[in-house]
Each structure stands twice: as C-alpha cells, then as structure tokens.
C-alpha cells in the first residue's frame, strides 16, 4: 500500500462536552478519575468521622444524621470501606495518575483504545452513583462490611440494610469490576504496544512497571470478584444456594439449603488480597520515582525493584487464605498460606532496602512530594511489620477480630497508599496545571497528616492486643473495655485534627491551580519523558514529535555529565549500559 504517513496531531476537540466531559484524551480522563476519587475520599472520610464520634459519644444526636443506631454504624462501616477501597485506593493511584502519566512516560500519544478508556471512566462513575444510592433506599446501606460475607449478605431479610441496599452494593461492585477490567486491558495493551523507540522494558520508569503489573493483577482478580458477585445476586434474587446453607432467620426457615459461606470467602479473598497490592503497588512506583529524583541518585537496584514488583504481584495470588484462618481451615492449608505470606516479606524488604539505599548519601531535596514519598516508606514499614504477626495462625486467631487488624491494614493499605497519592499529586501538579503547589501549606499538610495518622492508627494495635473487638458500634459500657475509652477518645481527637488539615490540602490544590508559583517544563530537574514535553502537555502529548529514548529512567549525577541529571531523550553520548 503506497501510503504517505504524515506525523501530525489529530485535531483536538473543541466543544466543552467533547473536551472535558466525554473526552477521549487520556489526560482529561486521568483528571476525571482523580477528581472522582477526591469526592469519594472526602465522602469516606466524613463517614469515618461519624463512626469515631459515635464510638466516643454513643448517645450523641448529630445534626442532619440524628441518632446513630447500631445498624447505622454498620452501614457507615460498609460504605466507608467500600468507597475507600474501590473508589479511592483503586481509582486514584492506578486509574487517575496511571491514565495521565503512563502514556506520556512511555512516549505514546494516547492510550491504545481511547473510546474504551472513556467508557471505563464513565462506568466507574455510574458504579459510584449506584453505591451512594444505597444510602437513600428503603432500609439504608448494607451491614455486611466491605467484605460482604455470606450468609448475611445473601439474605435480604437478615437486617434493615440487607434489602435493596445490599443489591445496590453488589451491583456497584459488579459495575466497578467491568470498568476496572476495561481499564486494565487498556493499560496492558498500551504498555506492550505503544512504547516509543528506545523505550525498552528495562528503561521504563518504575511507575510504569508498577501500573503495568497492577493492571495484570486487576485483569486476573476482578473477573473472579465479578463471578462471586454474580453468584451472590443469584442467591439473593433467584433462590439458588451457592453461599447459603440451611439457615433460620427470625425463627423462619429460609428456602436455601446446602450452600457454602466459605465459597464466598475464597472467591472474595482470591480477589481481595491482590486488591491490596492493586492499591499499594502504584504508590511503590511513585515512591521509587520520587526518592530517586529528589536524592539526585539512580534508584538503588533498578532490576531488583522490577523483579520485586513482579514477585509481590505473583505471590499476592497465593496468600488469600490468610484472611480465613478464623473461618476454619485445614491446618496444612493454613501452614502453606502462612509460609507464603511471610515469604512476601522478602520482595517487600528488597524494595524497602533499595529505597533506603537510594536515600543513603544522596543530595536530598526535601520538597513536599519527597516528604510524602519518605512518609510512604515509613508507613509501609510500620504497617508491614504487623503483617508477619497476622500471617501466623496462632497469633491471628486472638488478633483477627480486634482493632489490631484495623490498625494494620489502615497503615499499610490505607494511609501508605494515600501518601503515595499525595506524593504523586504534589510531584505532578506542575506538569498537570503549570504551577507548583504551595510549599509551606504542603509541609503543614505533611507533618500534621503524618503525626495525625500515626496517632489514630498506632494505638489500634494496643487496643487489639488488649482484646477490643472491631466492628462493634458501642463499647463504652462493656466492663473490660472501659479502661480503653481514654485512648479511643484521643484517637477521635487525632482524627478531628487530621481531617481538618486535609482541607488545607484541598485549599492548596485549588488555590495553586490559579495562584501557585509558575513552573517551567521540568521544575524538579527530573529525567522521565513527561518532563520533556510542554506544560500542560499538548493533546497528543509531544506536539507531533515522537520521542526517541536513549537513556534509562534514573540517570542522576552521572560522572562527567554537564548536569546532574540526564533526560531519557538526551543524545546517547555516554556508552550504553
């Protein structure tokens, strides 16, 4: 075919709707995901505040909400967990920043399938609306927690929130699964097929590696969650008995027979454990990127980092049973799951030591994004250390249903991943909006958030060891727990302060878009491809050029080089390595 290929930008859409609402541009879609997650995170945070208030002042009547009954508390708990895990921790780091920066960092003009990308965002959006709708239907939000254990989740008459609210919850999860699968398909195809000339796999920034491996995890895990959700919907609405054994509710024998509640747990946690890594891996990628950039040193052990990400992703699929030690399990299976879980400590430790090795002897620049990256490492270590405790069945059995577990997963999956999101926000803000975020406000935000989150979640470990059970709406009248009230009160006050300082972040975010210090194309003197293009990047990312990559992603302080950083597109003068 004698065709003449002209490299030129496809026309950018002009109308507001095509440009900002139903946009095909991965950058706009990334921002849409980011702002959806922002709405979700403030919603989820508000719910957690209500729970903390209720724990300390169980009889308090709150404006707008009124009295919090035990079932209201459980509804808040379910919605807080579901919103945070799906619409914040899965949405912002992977779909938000991944959408915006994965194509640019590999030198592509867009995602492989732009229409699919748009569909994926709007499907996620619908999923969020469906979930929020569960608050407003008859009976309110479901009571079964974000894990939705059967038979509670499978029986519509098991509680006030288990009617339409639970159906909406399952529908929302199923919609989210489909959206995530579309997203994962796009990420994987883009990474494999659209890399610029010279962008070999081992020259990809660690952020791209993290997003790529996360997409693979999502591709394998969300299909299983979808299958679990389908079975649950059939059980609830069409009378099948996949999950429900012979069961009596309120003195009434249900029509179900012979189902296995454990089946739900297996399917759910087969998804649920990789989901933990879906939330944290992008944060690891961002931490690697930032620690190298702001230490002015190549990342310590790039290949080891890549293999560690792969190792964590691979092993993440073989440990789901450690969530089920309490549910009854053959001791042999428990032993295998326990051993496998502790083995994940090895690649995690490789990553931690490599971050410390990168910091060691570096010319560290402590800008706000770097502070959050270091904060990520801190939280990852403190949250991670309680992992090997819970990985052992003998220790997990007394600790499992206590605040110990709440403290563990909030530090490592919740706050660490959120710190990854903050680090990425402060780091890429100049590229996305052309201005830097305010440093002073950023520092205030960082130090108060770091101290505040530790003040909230560290005491939970002690509460757990003291035997305080989780998910209970009231404990102040329980004899052996009354001594724990002062500590819980302290945590609630810490939550007030930590939440207040998030509004400083919110103000900084929107104020800096208009009034922040103007930033050049490469304000951090970084090396990856997004810093070679204009700010904000043009519609096709590189303004008609296609970048050619000559260097690895982290060539800082190369001996003999003119500057202390070598951009990936700089001419290949130094001998290739």
């Amino acid at each position, binding site marked *: *075919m*004698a*065709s*003449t*290929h*002209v*490299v*030129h*930008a*496809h*026309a950018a859409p002009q109308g507001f709707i095509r440009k900002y609402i139903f946009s*095909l541009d991965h950058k706009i879609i990334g921002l849409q995901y980011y702002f959806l997650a922002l709405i979700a995170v403030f919603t989820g945070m508000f719910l957690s505040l209500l729970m903390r208030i209720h724990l300390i002042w169980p009889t308090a009547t709150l404006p707008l909400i009124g009295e919090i009954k035990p079932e209201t508390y459980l509804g808040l708990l379910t919605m807080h967990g579901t919103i945070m895990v799906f619409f914040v921790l899965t949405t912002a780091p992977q779909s938000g920043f991944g959408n915006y920066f994965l194509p640019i960092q590999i030198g*592509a*003009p*867009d995602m*492989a*399938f*732009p*229409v*699919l990308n748009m*569909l*994926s965002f709007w499907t996620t959006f619908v999923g969020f609306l469906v979930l929020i709708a569960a608050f407003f239907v008859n009976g309110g939000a479901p009571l079964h927690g974000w894990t939705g254990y059967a038979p509670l989740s499978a029986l519509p008459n098991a509680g006030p929130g288990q009617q339409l609210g639970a159906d909406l919850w399952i529908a929302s999860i199923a919609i989210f699964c*489909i959206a995530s*699968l*579309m997203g*994962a*398909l796009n990420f*994987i*195809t883009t990474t*494999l*097929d*659209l890399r610029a000339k010279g962008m070999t796999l081992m020259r990809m920034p660690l952020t791209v590696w993290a997003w790529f491996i996360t997409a693979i995890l999502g*591709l*394998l895990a*969300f*299909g*299983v969650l*979808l*299958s*679990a959700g*389908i*079975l649950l919907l*059939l059980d609830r609405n*069409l*009378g*099948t*008995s*996949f999950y429900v*054994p*012979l069961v009596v509710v309120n003195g009434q024998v249900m029509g179900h*027979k*012979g*189902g*296995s509640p454990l*089946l739900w747990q*297996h*399917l759910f946690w*087969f998804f649920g454990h990789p989901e933990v890594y879906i939330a944290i891996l992008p944060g690891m990628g961002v931490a690697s990127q930032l620690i190298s950039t702001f230490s002015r040193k190549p990342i310590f052990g790039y290949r080891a980092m890549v293999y560690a990400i792969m190792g964590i992703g691979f092993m993440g699929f073989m440990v789901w049973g450690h969530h089920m030690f309490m549910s009854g399990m053959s001791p042999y299976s428990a032993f295998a799951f326990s051993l496998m879980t502790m083995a994940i400590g090895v690649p995690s430790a490789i990553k931690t030591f490599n971050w410390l090795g990168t910091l060691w002897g570096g010319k560290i620049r402590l800008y706000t994004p770097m502070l959050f990256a270091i904060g990520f490492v801190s939280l990852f270590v403190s949250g991670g250390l309680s992992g090997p405790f819970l990985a052992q069945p003998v220790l997990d059995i007394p600790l499992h249903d206590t605040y110990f577990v709440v403290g563990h997963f909030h530090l490592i999956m919740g706050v660490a991943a959120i710190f990854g999101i903050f680090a990425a926000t402060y780091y890429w803000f100049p590229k996305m909006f052309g201005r830097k975020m305010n440093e002073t406000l950023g520092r205030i935000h960082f130090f108060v958030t770091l101290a505040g989150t530790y003040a909230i979640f560290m005491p939970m470990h002690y509460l757990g060891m003291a035997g305080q059970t989780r998910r209970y709406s009231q404990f102040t009248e329980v004899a052996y727990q009354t001594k724990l009230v002062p500590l819980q009160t302290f945590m609630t006050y810490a939550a007030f302060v930590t939440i207040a300082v998030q509004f400083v972040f919110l103000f900084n975010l929107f104020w800096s878009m208009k009034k922040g210090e103007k930033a050049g194309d490469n304000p951090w003197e970084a090396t990856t491809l997004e810093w070679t293009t204009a700010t904000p990047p043009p519609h*096709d990312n590189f303004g008609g050029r*296609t970048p050619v990559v000559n260097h690895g992603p982290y060539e800082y302080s190369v001996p003999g080089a003119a500057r202390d950083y070598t951009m990936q597109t700089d001419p290949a003068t130094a001998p290739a390595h």
Partner: protein
Amino acid sequence: MSSIVTRDPRTFHGGGSELPPTDGGGGDGRGGGGSPDYGQRLRRARLGLAVGITPVIMLFVSFTSAYIIRQGLPTLDEQTNKYIHDWLPVNLPWVLLLLNTIVLVISSVTMEFARRHIAREAALAPVRSIPGISLGDEESFPWLGLTVVLGLGFLFGQWMAWKELASRGFFLATSPSSSFVYLLTGTHAIHLIGGVVALLYAAATALLRKPVEARRIVVDITAWYWHFMALLWIYVFALLEFAR
C-alpha cells in the same frame, strides 16, 4: 495468509480497534487525523483481544473451582442432623447439546472462511485500485451472514436444552447441580451474544463502506473471539457431561 506490510515510520496516530463488545470492546473515535497504519492497528487489536479474553477465562476458572468444590462438599441434613452428600447429577439432554456443538463448530469454520476471505480482499485492495487492472469478480459467499445464522441457531438450541431441563423438573434453584448447569451455560450464552453483536457490527461496517482494511480488523478479531467461544463451549460441555 496475506497481510499488508507497510514500511513507513510508525505514526501511532489513529490507533485503535473495534473489539467485540463483550467485556468491553470499543472503537477508536480518533481515526481521522493521521493516515492509519492498518498493520499496526490489526496487531494492537489482536493484542487487546488476547488481553481481553483473560478475564473471561478467569470468570470460568472461578465458576469451575466453585463447581468442583461444591460437588465434594458435605451438607448438614436437618432431618438426621448428619453430614450427607446431596449432589444430584443432572442428566443433560446430550443429543441436543451435541447437535448444538456441531452447529457451533461449523459456525467457527464459516467464520474462519470469512476471516480469510476479507484478509485476501484487503491484500488485493491496492492492486484493484490501479486503473486498468481487473482481477475478475471473486465469488463472495456471505460467510459472515451464515455465521450469524449458525450462531443464532446455537443459541436457539441452548434455549431448547433449558426448556428440556425445565420440563424434567430441573430449574435454576432446584439443586446445586442444576444451578451450576444454568450458570455455566448461561454465562457462555451471554458471551456468545456479545460475539453475535460484534458480527452484526462487522456487517454494518460493510454497509457503511468503511475501507476494507478497517473492516478486516473487525472481522479478524471477531473471528478469534468466535473461535474462543467455540472452544469455551466445548470445555463447558465436557465439564458438565464428564464431571457431574
């Protein structure tokens, strides 16, 4: 199989594909600007399809594991208060299902003919556009149409099989085994309907006079998806017949 080789620099513009809509397909709305490199687009679409069928496989892996586990699971009997095995094997209407299988396999063959035919057409398109060159009228048997008819025939046959099961008293909620029969066959049927929609879309692109190279991409990946559906059905049938 012939294909088009272009040696021009990659533009990366207008990439994208028309995937079958099951589990999220999508086109690319941006085709216009740069001239599209069809070889590249075909490769990308095939890669996208290979990635896209992975969650479908995971869905069936998940159902299969649940099926096998449930089979061996003892349940509490409320009369005797003892654990019993209550798995009731479902006798499938296997003659009918075998007939359906044959229909689906034949449709896979006709789909393959359609795929090869349009690949040849796409390869010859540049030659045909040279003035004064005539390749003669090639026979153009409506392979796509035949595939759609056979696909719908298979779905009708599945419907008949469900009616047959229902007439024997096996409904969705009758027993764990019948639940799984409906679940597995139903999920497969929904995915096959996605394939039929993709085929109808491919036929529509022909009517809309899209370039033959673009139509070839649609037909090509729909064909691979269709073959996957045939294999998946053989797997589901074998699982239900031999592991009951």
